[in-house]
């Protein structure tokens, strides 16, 4: 098993004043809420799949802390986000609704990601500047470098005011550690470094690429070790610690906004469930290992932190749980009853082209 422990001494950010220290109780509770909502939606999706009501689910469980941290560090709904299929918590925190997630699960017309054309969790949301992703991994990374290149270009050509907070000022992309073996990742990182782009690559390192462990993907202990090879700053962080993840992401954001260049944040985490609804993880890892990681659950950990500081109490937890349950139920019913896409336009060859302005 790969060692996911993070040497805090090595984390320069932890030595100084931490940005997370200044997060208000309200913000901390909002972060907690998105982690919880994501988890409950995710659990329901597994159930819906086991009931035969949806054909597929791919989970973001265990990754909620680094995802919500990433979303809260950037200008949510404005900065470009080019995520991958585990980023349910990130997309919810950026502004996607529970209903919108459920619509995707059921393949319904109103699904904002693709109108039911793509498999679930292939997130996209034009109004929130969430880009559309495909299934082949790492394809989003060089595109995100292109988005960041676009931002830099727009500012240089005075198409965009660098201080205008209604415009995207960075591009955040994410992927798993296995996906960093793809040439696309390397080429995207290289452009980001060469052009010093406002670009953040969040690697959600959960040790396994479906079944293949980290040491068969790369010969270095950290993905972030490779960042230097591209002239990119690399940060390793405990991805199950939302506040440490937030601190790392804020540093990356500040570098992007201030023109200092790109950052790779590697969040060490774990996927306590199979890769997808079609996977059986018993063939490649022990139950003991999975149980050990469940004890490090990022939501339980953050909950304890909030309880210890009196920001959360049992009543509030119950309240949040009730609210999440209600939201999950309502969004499920809504999506279940929503109409499917119309067949004719979905299969019309002209629908693959954007209309040309005359």
């Amino acid at each position, binding site marked *: 098993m790969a060692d996911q422990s993070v040497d805090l001494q090595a984390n320069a950010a932890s030595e100084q004043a931490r940005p997370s220290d200044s997060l208000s109780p309200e913000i901390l509770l909002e972060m907690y809420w998105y982690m919880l909502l994501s988890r409950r939606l995710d659990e329901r999706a597994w159930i819906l799949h086991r009931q035969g009501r949806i054909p597929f689910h791919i989970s973001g469980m265990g990754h909620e802390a680094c995802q919500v941290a990433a979303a809260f560090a950037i200008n949510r709904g404005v900065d*470009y986000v*080019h995520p991958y299929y585990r980023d349910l918590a990130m997309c919810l925190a950026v502004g996607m609704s529970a209903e919108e997630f459920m619509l995707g699960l059921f393949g319904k017309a109103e*699904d*904002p*990601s*693709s*109108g039911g*054309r*793509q498999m679930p969790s*292939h997130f*996209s949301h*034009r109004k929130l500047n969430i*880009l*559309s992703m*495909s299934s*082949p991994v790492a*394809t989003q*990374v*060089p*595109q*995100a*470098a*292109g*988005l*960041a*290149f*676009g*931002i830099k*270009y*727009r500012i*240089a*050509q005075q*198409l965009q005011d660098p201080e205008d907070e209604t415009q*995207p000022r960075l*591009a955040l992309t994410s992927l798993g550690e296995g996906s960093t073996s793809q*040439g*696309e990742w390397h*080429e*995207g990182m*290289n*452009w980001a470094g*060469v052009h010093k782009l406002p670009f953040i690559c969040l690697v959600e390192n959960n040790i396994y690429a479906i079944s293949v462990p980290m040491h068969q993907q790369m010969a270095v202990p950290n993905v972030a070790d490779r960042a230097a090879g591209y002239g990119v700053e690399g940060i390793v962080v405990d991805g199950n610690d939302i506040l440490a993840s937030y601190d790392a992401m804020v540093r990356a954001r500040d570098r992007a906004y201030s023109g200092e260049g790109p950052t790779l944040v590697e969040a060490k985490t774990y996927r306590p469930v199979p890769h997808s609804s079609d996977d059986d993880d018993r063939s490649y890892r022990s139950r003991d290992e999975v149980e050990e990681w469940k004890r490090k659950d990022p939501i339980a950990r953050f909950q304890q932190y909030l309880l210890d500081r009196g920001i959360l109490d049992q009543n509030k937890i119950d309240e949040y749980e009730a609210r999440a349950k209600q939201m999950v139920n309502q969004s499920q019913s809504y999506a279940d009853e929503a109409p499917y896409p119309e067949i004719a336009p979905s299969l019309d*060859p002209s*629908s*693959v*082209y*954007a*209309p*040309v*302005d005359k």
Partner: protein
Amino acid sequence: MATKTLIEAIREAMDEELENDPRVFITGEDVGPRGGVFRATMGLIEKHGPERVVDSPLAELSIIAIGIGAAMADLRPICEIQFADFIHPAMNQIMNEAAKMYYRSNGTWTVPMTIRAPYGGGISGGLYHSQSLEALFAHCPGLKIVIPSTPYDAKGLLKSAIRDPNPVLFFEAKKGYRAIKGEVPDGDYTVPIGPVNVRRAGDDVTIYAYGMMAHYAVEAANMVAEQDGIAAEVVDVRTILPVDREGILESFKKTGKALIIYEDNLTMGYGAEVAAILSDEGFEYMDGPIRRLAGPDVPSVPYSHPVQEAFMPSPKKIADAIREIAEY
């Protein structure tokens, strides 16, 4: 109207679009001070600056992917692939990403990018500087594929490509870059992507061709007109995708005989689709076998001169094929 070469027309289109729209930029290998290995971007960095004419790292995938991202950030990238033969590392980004973006996002994200790539044989380029790849991409809904033959069309179609909200592959006949000359107006005009163009009228046989082969077809048609009194009509296909079915059928209704020319490999090539359209929708007009004259099914154009010449369709080979069909 001034006479310009194919490559001058292409350069002029880019120059004017850079001038007219601050969102337009060029990236690719050696497009900067070198002006491109074929000189298509010559002088553009001096005129428009290094922020808008950007030498890329030597990695084709990233040239395309950066273009996709920049296009989604509302820029209008022109991505140059130095030779079409080098485009394969970017296949995933072109076919799975750029081509599918609009459809897979249910029409919410668009990729208004142009990919320029010199293609074609007959220039001693061997297997990897000679390829014609239109058929590979033509099987991919969501792309537009343009192959101009005249300088007039090259300028007008490239402007349309740059302004198009969809990803457009713009293949340029490198053999004709300087050999092909024609009248090109100064200033702005466009030629729409889509419709075919009848380059030469005739009633006996229709020849379908594009790019360099459209010139050979016209030459061959003139040859058989003079020598044999055969009136061949040359349809310059210009846009490979989406297919102008009506335009393709139109001429065939008149002649009932078709010869399709391309320097790409024969099998599963563009000609197969044209033949299918004609036999399906034009069956009642058919007056002879629908013939294809194309490159043989070997990987690409071999370097050795006599082998190269034997690979390539030529005006003479086309003329012979026209005679055969006309006699039928």
